[in-house]
Structures are given as structure tokens and as C-alpha cells.
């Protein structure tokens, strides 16, 4: 069974601060996806990283896939209250039937 460990589990910061969320596994994944989930809604895809060492930027969010494709990080610069939510990483694997294994998530609160 492939497991993804996310840390920290909870994070409460002031508006304008920077933060990093981590996603680690002992397994290799074909891809790593990051989702954000708001209360009462389903997860929404933020980014997919496929190549080891890959870095992608989405406005103030920077995503990195580890060289060995076992871990990933999400860095948010100058956090805004609108960044508040549950951040989930999901590892993708499978040749025929592609499936995602989700971590437990990091619950981020950005205080104005």
C-alpha cells in the first residue's frame, strides 16, 4: 500500500507570511498532484508534477517534485486569507487504470 505523509497537519499563520507544506512517501509515483479543498466542496486540482526535480509556479504558489519522485513540497509566498483551505497531495500510479493515493492533508488558516 502506497502511503503519503503530509506535514504539518495544521498551520495557522498571519497574512503576508510565507509557508511550506510537505508531502513524503517511501514509494515512487508517476506523478504528484496538489489539490485545494474548501469546506463543503470537492478538491480542486492546483498542479500536476511529473518529472523528478520539476518546479512549477502558480502565482504565489511554488510546487516542487523530489528528484526521486517520492516527495513534494508546496511553498506559498505572502499568504492571503483566500489561501485558507485544506491542501491535499495525491500520488498517481498505474499503467492501465491510473489511480490517485491521497495524503491526509494540511489544513491552512491565514489570519487577516
Amino acid at each position, binding site marked *: 500500500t502506497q502511503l503519503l505523509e503530509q506535514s504539518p497537519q495544521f498551520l495557522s499563520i498571519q497574512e503576508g507570511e510565507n509557508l511550506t507544506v510537505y508531502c513524503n512517501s517511501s514509494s515512487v509515483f508517476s506523478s504528484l498532484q496538489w489539490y485545494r479543498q474548501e469546506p463543503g466542496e470537492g478538491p480542486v*486540482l492546483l498542479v500536476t508534477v511529473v518529472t523528478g526535480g520539476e518546479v512549477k509556479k502558480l502565482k504565489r504558489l511554488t510546487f516542487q517534485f523530489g528528484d526521486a519522485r517520492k516527495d513534494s513540497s508546496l511553498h506559498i509566498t505572502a499568504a492571503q486569507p483566500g489561501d485558507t483551505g485544506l491542501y491535499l497531495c*495525491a500520488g*498517481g500510479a498505474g499503467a492501465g487504470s491510473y489511480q490517485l493515493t*491521497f495524503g491526509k*492533508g494540511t489544513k491552512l488558516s491565514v489570519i487577516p
Partner: protein
Amino acid sequence: EAGVAQSPRYKIIEKRQSVAFWCNPISGHATLYWYQQILGQGPKLLIQFQNNGVVDDSQLPKDRFSAERLKGVDSTLKIQPAKLEDSAVYLCASSLSRGTTDIQYFGAGTRLSVL
């Protein structure tokens, strides 16, 4: 483009009762997934359909859970009889199934409370 539709949004039942959830995926999406998300955890895959066939149901508790996608479009997930530990949000997702670049689109989910 319409998103993934799920109903009902909320359901409260007593243990040992039955319940059914409905999902209508995005038009043209061949793959449909049902996930269970317990409070404080990430979604856990219950079953994956490709068109109207089951691809993976290894984590579906088959003694009480069943799911079908008869015409390869919408799907229903049923629990009979429900247990207290089934309290969770049940998410439906659909995708075009493109391997590593696949994007799963999620519905808002059905929040089930078993009393």
C-alpha cells in the same frame, strides 16, 4: 461546462438503515470514481469505473457497499446496512483518463451522518 453533479448534499440516517448516493459525471468522461473522505483525512478510493465496467473495487467493503454505472454515464453508490463508521463525505469524480496528465474533477460530495 457543467461540473460533476452529486445528490443529495446531506443525508442523516440511523445505523442499519440503507442509503443511496447519485453522481452524474462531466459529459464525455469515461472514468468515474467514488471516494470516501472521513473527517480529518484525505479521500480514499472506493471504486473506479471505466465506462460501465469496474476497473478497481479492491477497497470497497462489498458486504455492505455496492455501486453501479449501468449505462456508462451516471452512477449510484449504495450502503446497506449502514454502520456508525460510515459517517463521511462521499465524493464522486470523473476524468478523461489520460494517464499521468489525467485531471480528476470532483463533485461537492454527499455528507452522510449515521446515528
